[in-house]
């Protein structure tokens, strides 16, 4: 055991972990800034642009503010669960980055069921919301938590089922193999991405992904016009920041999964000298994720929230049958061809 901890393999693994975790945390902080700026541009206002050039130091200022805020605990709250809930939602959100391949070499663990592992980890994320809402001992958080648990349970079904079509085509559950299966082009121009084979699945995945991460127009756990701030009404300071970061980490995870499964992962045009070819896959991957996140932000800025019963009806009566029909059609074609 001691030999292992001093081996080169272990050192490389630790370096990868630190690099990925550090860059993810930094990127998450700046995603918040980018989102606020984009929302502002859509709504014709300047957005946060005072702290540093173009507001680039805003995340740091926010972080400092979160750190120095007074820690409040609501009366009669369940203190243990109240403090545990942000951690419970933060850990699964960051854990899924362990199996996401950022490039051909840049992944921490390549296991043969990594796709299912991500679904398993993200399915635990709901407990952070539920416990945070329940332990605050206040009515709006409780309502937010109950909405969140029902909503995330319902949309997880269509999220998981939308993926099955892709799995039928690519015959693997490993994310790295999924990406490798999408190399090459049809007729020399159209890239061999699964989105062209599975457009319905992509649509279902996109919509249920938005619902899974509690974003507008499906943000019923938070819905500030009805429930103050939903499940994190009673949270402030660093605890709120952890919930906030967990939400963005989940967004990035969903985007990364969509990129890997539907948009070809790190595949893209390769050119230039060898050092450029080393980093190009990662650049393509990050660009695709950024494009996906941009769609998320545009959706948030443009589409109003629907009603809660409409949300449940949409999930169970539209998305779920659509995902099932997609599986049927896909398996028919896979069996025939």
């Amino acid at each position, binding site marked *: 055991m001691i030999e292992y901890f001093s081996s080169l393999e272990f050192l490389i693994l630790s370096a990868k972990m630190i690099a990925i975790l550090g860059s993810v945390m930094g990127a998450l902080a700046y995603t918040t800034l980018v989102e606020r700026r984009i929302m502002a541009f859509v709504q014709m206002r300047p957005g946060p642009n005072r702290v540093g050039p173009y507001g680039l130091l805003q995340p740091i200022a926010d972080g400092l503010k979160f750190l120095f805020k007074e820690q409040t605990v609501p009366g009669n709250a369940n203190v243990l669960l109240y403090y545990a809930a942000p951690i419970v939602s933060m850990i699964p959100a960051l854990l899924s980055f362990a199996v996401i391949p950022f490039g051909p070499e840049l992944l921490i663990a390549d296991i043969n*069921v990594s796709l*299912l592992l991500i*679904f*398993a980890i993200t*399915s635990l994320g709901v407990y952070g919301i539920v416990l945070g809402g*329940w332990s605050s001992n206040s009515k709006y958080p409780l309502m937010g*938590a109950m909405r969140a*648990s029902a909503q995330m349970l319902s949309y997880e079904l269509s999220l998981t089922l939308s993926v099955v079509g892709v799995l039928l085509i690519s015959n693997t559950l490993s994310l790295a193999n999924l990406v490798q299966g999408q190399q090459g082009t049809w007729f020399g121009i159209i890239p061999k991405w699964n989105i062209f084979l599975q457009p319905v699945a992509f649509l279902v995945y996109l919509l249920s992904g938005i619902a899974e991460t509690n974003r507008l127009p499906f943000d019923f756990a938070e819905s500030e016009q009805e429930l103050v701030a939903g499940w994190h009404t009673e949270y402030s300071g660093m605890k709120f920041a952890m919930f906030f970061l967990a939400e963005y980490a989940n967004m990035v995870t969903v985007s990364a999964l969509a990129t890997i499964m539907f948009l070809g992962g790190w595949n893209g045009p390769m050119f230039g000298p060898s050092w450029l070819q080393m980093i190009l896959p990662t650049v393509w991957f990050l660009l695709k994720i950024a494009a996906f996140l941009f769609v998320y932000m545009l959706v948030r800025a443009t589409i109003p929230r629907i009603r809660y019963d409409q949300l449940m009806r949409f999930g169970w009566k539209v998305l779920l049958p659509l995902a099932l029909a997609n599986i049927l059609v896909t398996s028919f074609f896979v069996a025939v061809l």
Partner: protein
Amino acid sequence: MMELLFFVFAAIALGSAINVLVQRHVLYSSLSLILLLTAMSGLFVLMQAEFLAVINVIVYAGAIMVLFVFVIMLLNLPQDEDEEDRLRWLKLLGIPMGLFLMFMVIRTVWNVEGSAAAPQLSGTPQAIGASLFTDYLLPFELTSLLILIALMGAVVFAKKDL
């Protein structure tokens, strides 16, 4: 290394199982059970049953236990009220008897050994799927019937005017 991991997961599993029993509020019990389930998944991974480990977390911790927590929050239960002591002496009697049963069962399995010549098995999705859709096709189809019946039963029971 493997032994160390086994002891860690076994300790978590046993501790959380005991915690399920001693907690007075069912929400704590269910949270403790979630911990038990994740420890169980860790044990499955130690036995090369990766697919089951992941499915265990997705189905149990991610769906069934969310349902439990949802119902507990929906009913907004108070702490378990202290019941009349009809059961106090039953508990005093039951716990030693349970421990005795545990002792007997453990003594039975103490010396069991697996066949040494058995082939190495890896619980990959391919292996499980191949077996599920050939040898166990009929039971697999029947489970869908079971789920349908459970679905209808749940709808009927949860109706307002029972």
